[in-house]
C-alpha cells in the first residue's frame, strides 16, 4: 500500500534519475550478474561486459520503463500491458529474478543517493518495485 506522499517521493526520485537512466540501469544489471550468476543465462545473446553498448542500452530501457510507471502508479497494469505480454510469452524470465533485480536496484540507488536514500525512501521504493514486478508477471499464468 503506497501513501500519496510515498507516490510523490517515488516519482520525484525517478524523474531525477531519468537523465542518467543508462548509468543506473547498467549498474543495477551488473550488480545482479555479480551476485546472481544464474541471471546471466537470460543474456547469452548479448554482450553484458561492463560498459558494453548492449548493457547500457538494456539498462536504460529498464529504468525508463520503471520511471514511466512511477508517473502514475495507479495505472501500472495499463502502462505495463505490452511489457507484461513480452515478459510472459517471449522472455519467460523466472520471476525470482525480478526480486534479485529489485534488490540490486535498491543497492544502486543507495550507492548513488547515499544519505538521501533514507529509510522512508527505501521503504517506498521497495514497495513500488515489488508492485512493478508483480504487475509485470501477471500474464505468466
Amino acid at each position, binding site marked *: 500500500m503506497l501513501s500519496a506522499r510515498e507516490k510523490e517521493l517515488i516519482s520525484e526520485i525517478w524523474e531525477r534519475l531519468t537523465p542518467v537512466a543508462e548509468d543506473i540501469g547498467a549498474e543495477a544489471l551488473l550488480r545482479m550478474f*555479480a551476485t546472481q550468476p544464474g541471471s546471466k543465462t537470460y543474456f547469452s545473446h548479448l554482450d553484458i561486459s561492463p560498459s558494453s553498448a548492449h548493457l547500457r542500452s538494456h539498462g536504460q530501457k529498464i529504468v525508463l520503463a520503471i520511471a514511466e510507471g512511477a508517473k502514475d502508479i495507479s495505472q501500472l497494469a495499463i502502462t505495463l500491458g505490452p511489457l507484461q505480454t513480452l515478459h510472459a510469452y517471449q522472455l519467460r524470465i523466472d520471476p525470482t529474478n525480478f526480486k534479485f533485480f529489485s534488490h540490486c536496484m535498491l543497492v544502486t540507488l543507495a*550507492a548513488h543517493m547515499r544519505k538521501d536514500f533514507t*529509510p*522512508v525512501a*527505501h521503504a517506498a521504493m521497495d514497495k513500488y518495485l515489488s508492485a512493478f514486478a508483480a504487475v509485470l508477471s501477471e500474464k505468466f499464468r
Partner: protein
Amino acid sequence: MVEWTDFERATIVDIFSKMQYEVVGPAALARCLVVYPWTQRYFGNFGNLYNAAAISGNPMVAKHGTTILHGLDRAVKNMDDIKATYAELSVLHSEKLHVDPDNFKLLSDCLTIVVAAQLGKDFTGEVQAAFQKFLAVVVSALGRQYH
C-alpha cells in the same frame, strides 16, 4: 565448508576494519524496522517506534543495532567455521527469542544497503557479491539450530 576466494576474504576484512559500528549498526536496524514494519514485533519493549523519525532517533534501537553489528565480528575472525561460531547464538534466537529466521535475511539486506550508502561507488558489484555471500553464510548459521 565454505570456500572463500582471496578477494572475498580481503573484502570482508577490509569492510569491517573500516566499519563505523555506531553509525552503521543503528542505521541498519532502524532501516529494517521502517522498511519491514512487522519486524517491530520483536521489540515491544523498545518504546516509541511509531514512525520513521521515532525509530531512527530511538536510543534502544541504536544500542541494539550496534550490538548486532559487533556480533558479526566473530564471523569475520572465523570465516572458515561460521557455522560453529554461531551455534549458541542460533539456539538463543530460536529457543529464547523466538525470532523467525526469515528476519535474518531482511536485516542483512538492510545492512547491505546501509553499507552501500556509506561506500558509494567503492561498493562495486564484486564487493557487493562478497558481502552478500558473507551475510548469507551468517544467516544460514543463525538458522541452523532451529527445529
